[in-house]
């Protein structure tokens, strides 16, 4: 079953003659458990597509069905709830809360959770569990400035996972990392994929895209082509522990 289903998705900035069609009729379907890369040169509509898929923005035209919910016409508060419950963001620059510990950062999405009535202690326990799963059991009380880039991105991954989202939306997750940390993060992505997670990763790096099963190429706001890629074979044996 498709987690993401878009029909004729368009996004127009501005009005009248100076309007720009950043996305122009994108039809896209991403199945549950898929690991997909979105590639394209700058100005191709990559960011616009990511913003719409991430429910940070709404399409001007077309439909976006997320997890069998039509989110195209939702208001800001409803979109916020969708982001909270169904989308896990991983950003290039980590985007952690500066003055909060790793634990508090991972707990943050739980604070905005309107569905589960967890107590403060339950929230702590849940966040700890995810932090342990990404290998940060001894870094929970550290603030971002006390962590390496790779560790910060692991905190971000834990934060993306804590509300058990429908899919993970990663925007150049290795872009700010040295090659060693970058590989570790990609390994973590593979583990998540193996664990059954749906991942959409925006990148301009063809080598990184190789890690995924499918790559969607955008150009001038349209899908140029979709290719089968490496299908995540780089995963190590036994690393597929479910997170």
């Amino acid at each position, binding site marked *: 079953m498709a987690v993401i289903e878009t029909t004729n998705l368009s996004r127009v900035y501005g009005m009248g003659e100076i309007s720009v069609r950043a996305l122009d009729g994108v039809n896209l379907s991403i199945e549950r458990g898929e690991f997909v890369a979105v590639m394209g040169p700058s100005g191709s509509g990559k960011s616009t597509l990511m*913003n719409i898929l*991430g429910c*940070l*923005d709404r399409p001007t035209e077309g439909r976006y069905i997320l997890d069998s919910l039509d989110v195209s016409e939702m208001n*800001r*508060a409803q979109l*916020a*709830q969708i*982001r*909270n*419950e169904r989308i896990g*963001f991983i*950003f290039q620059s980590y*985007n*952690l*809360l*500066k*003055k*909060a510990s790793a634990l508090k950062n991972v707990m*943050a*999405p739980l*604070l*905005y*959770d309107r569905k589960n009535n967890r107590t*403060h202690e339950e929230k702590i326990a849940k966040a700890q569990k995810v932090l342990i799963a990404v290998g940060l059991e001894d870094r929970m009380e550290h603030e971002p400035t006390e962590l390496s880039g790779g560790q910060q991105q692991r905190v971000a991954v834990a*934060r993306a996972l804590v*509300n058990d989202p429908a899919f993970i939306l990663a925007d150049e997750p290795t872009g700010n990392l040295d090659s060693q940390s970058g590989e570790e993060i990609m390994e973590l992505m593979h583990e998540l994929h193996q664990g059954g997670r749906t991942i959409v990763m925006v990148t301009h790096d063809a080598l990184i895209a190789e890690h995924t099963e499918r790559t969607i190429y955008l150009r001038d706001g349209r899908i140029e082509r979709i290719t089968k890629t490496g299908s995540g074979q780089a995963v190590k044996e036994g690393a597929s522990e479910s997170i």
Partner: protein
Amino acid sequence: MSLSEFIRLAWESISGNKLRSLLTMLGIIIGVASVIIMIGISAGTEAAIEEQITGLGSNLVFVTQNFSRGGADRFRQGGGLVYDDASAIADNVNGVVAVVVEQPSTESVRTGNVVLDGVVIQGSTADFPSVRDIEIDRGRYFTEQEVDRTQKVAVLGSSLAEELFGEATPIGQTVTVDNIKLTVIGVFEERGLVSGTDFDAQLYTPITVVFQKFTPSQFARFRGDRVRAIIVEVEGPEVVDGTIQQIELLLARRHDVTLDAADFGVTTQQDIIQTQEATTAAFRNLLAWVAGVSLIVGGIGIMNIMLVTVSERTREIGIRQSIGAAPNDIRWQFLTEAVVLSLAGGVIGVLVGVGGSILFGALSDMRTVVVTGSIVLAFTSAAVVGIFFGFYPANQASQLDPIEALRHE
């Protein structure tokens, strides 16, 4: 997100930037403290005034001259209060305990080589100390017989006695008032300033002496000596109203005037207290407004800092939005922060205000009273100020576009 989580979040942010938070709260602290101190001072003043007026003696009715309605004509025709009115009241009105007549004159007083100008010579009658509630310290007050016989005796207020005689004993000494020699027979205890009159600086002598020597009048031969005031002590508060009516009717008949055109006025201590209270209430309101303005200034300070905070923390707002914070969550976060900030300022302000009131009362002559209502008022205003001035920045924050906010450096 629950309220306790918002408060926790607000507290983390406030305590994460202590100096700035303290400076932001300063306006509120000063505002709240000044509300409490200002109200404390005026309430203290009010209490002191009331105590003083009650200290004039209890259950008193004051009969004074009033030419405002009769006009100056009536004065020339010989209207106004006269000495005989006092005995008429004593004889004809029910519920009267004592009647005292007062007729002052201002003269220079001399003894040895001390000369004091502008001393109030208070002519009165024998019941003056008991009605005016003032104690004799040394010697005695003059008697009814001495008043009747126009005896040239004097009783001194405590500070007057000290100025005239210093450490020496005044009793038995002679003072010269406008060439009239009076023998000092007593000195009053210290009484202080009561409702604008300094009882300690006056010289007291039989009213007949004042009539004869200091305020002689040709008119006195026809209708009697004019007096400034007649003070009537009544049995108790419950008879005051009845007594006033009787006095008014009696005097109107004696003076041959209608009540509407009376050449005298009758007031009670209660009237005087109410007049004074009206004055201090106006004073208190003024102070409260001044303090209120400083609270508003404090609120503007909070708004200013909250706007800076929102723009500094745009990235944080974007992050929170991306992980699921709705506009309302962001609005509440910053509103809670502003309110916690002003309430914390309010708590400190209350402590400073209460401490300041007590200290001010201890260090100055003024009396201060910490009014519980003022604490509630000041604290509530601080909260209202926080909500009012916190709303705009919080609303700004909630309207930020998540994509823009995430891009913000």
